[in-house]
């Protein structure tokens, strides 16, 4: 596979991989780095890419695994006695939606709410409600059973709704 063929094959997924990495890692620079790592790995296995029905699905799975590994290594370093410390990256690295989204209260609230979801719920919510992947695609990307995906998605959506209603009612 030549350089040009490779680029044509993998470039379309760029945005999706980045958005997934950002939502998992909650940091723009970390996400950019992760995507570059994934592309490097893809380049190193370029001779095998023809065997895959969907290179995009492969790339999404690789991105997910890489991000989860990164999160785990942060967690092992930052855990306190209760073992439930959340991932904290330096404040300059934190993804700041105010720069990008409309300066709109409810959008910012929703962003915060989604970031507080457990990682698996956040991921499934992202893959379905933001990227619109089908259940089959999500199944192959995450290795979760269909039922588990439905349940996790339901929990995530309800979780967002409950939290949002709470903040809504305080206004």
């Amino acid at each position: 596979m030549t350089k040009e063929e490779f680029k044509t094959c993998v470039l379309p997924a760029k945005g999706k991989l980045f958005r997934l990495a950002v939502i998992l890692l909650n940091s723009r620079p970390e996400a950019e780095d992760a995507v570059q790592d994934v592309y490097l790995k893809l380049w190193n296995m370029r001779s095998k890419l023809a065997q895959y029905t969907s290179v995009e699905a492969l790339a999404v799975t690789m991105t997910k695994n890489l991000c989860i590994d990164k999160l785990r290594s942060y967690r092992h370093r930052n855990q306190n006695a209760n073992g439930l410390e959340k991932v904290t990256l330096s404040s300059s690295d934190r993804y700041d939606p105010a720069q990008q989204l409309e300066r709109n209260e409810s959008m910012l609230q929703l962003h915060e709410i989604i970031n507080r979801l457990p990682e698996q719920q956040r991921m499934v919510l992202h893959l379905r409600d933001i990227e619109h992947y089908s259940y089959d695609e999500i199944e192959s990307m995450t290795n979760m059973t269909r039922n588990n995906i439905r349940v996790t998605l339901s929990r995530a959506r309800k979780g967002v709704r409950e939290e949002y209603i709470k903040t809504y009612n305080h206004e």
Partner: protein
Amino acid sequence: MNKKEANKLISTYYAGATTCQEEEQLRTFFSSKNVPDEFQKHADQFRYYDEVRNVEHYQCDPFAKIDFEKDAAVPPFEGGVSGMAEKESKFDEAETTIATAENISSRVMFDPLNNKPGNKLTWLLRIAAGFLLLLAGFAAGQFLETEDYASTQQVAQLEQEVQQMKRALMNTGRHQQASAGERLSAVNLSTRIAAGDETSDQQVTDILIHTMNTDENVNVRSAAAEALFQFRKEVGIKVAFINGLSKQDDPLMQITLIDMLVELEATNAISEMEKMLANNDTNELVRRELEAGIAELNV
């Protein structure tokens, strides 16, 4: 779409049961001008998902880490010379294993139970990893030559790996010999040992169960639980998790086990969970997980 239809679709949505088309219908409904007030909260969520999708632009060069020129000169082997490719991939795997093991050990330097000075630890780990690499390469080579010889070789190699794992993880009655970092990498390596061979899988799961229940370090226990999840098809794993749940008092472990039991659809875990819920000492976050888990399993 009238209100009644909308309400029906909305509850299906929250149950996670809508199809792509139904979600599309909801999106259209919510983006129209005259969304009734009571639907506003739902509409906001949908609007957020749309906006986020449009806003995330990746501006960097995704190919920045690739050196096209260097790699283009030496193209990787295609499927044709399969022997070489397999050896290479095993080598890569072993390399990554060593790298991960070293990373983990260097991060757990401050472990108070670690009696050995840093240098000796890395040195020993390197020896162990090098040995594993040797075995892996040897086994790969043998496997490629003849089937018969390979299977005895494989079994011997499996035995070796299981023994090493045992030594690293089993408590001999005194303080555990290996450091937390070494125990952690032993747990992570265990998932690669699984070759579908019944007896060695049994040994590996026994060791993992022992580690999950008794290791002093919560990270090692947690990693053991997750490694066990890979073996979930084995008989007795569900039971091990349920027993683990009743014995563990660390909230992280409890939550990990609850999640796995729900994944496994282990309905006989319900009574244990209800017991924990009734106990007032149970951590608040664990309570929430318990409630969610019980609801899930009752479905």
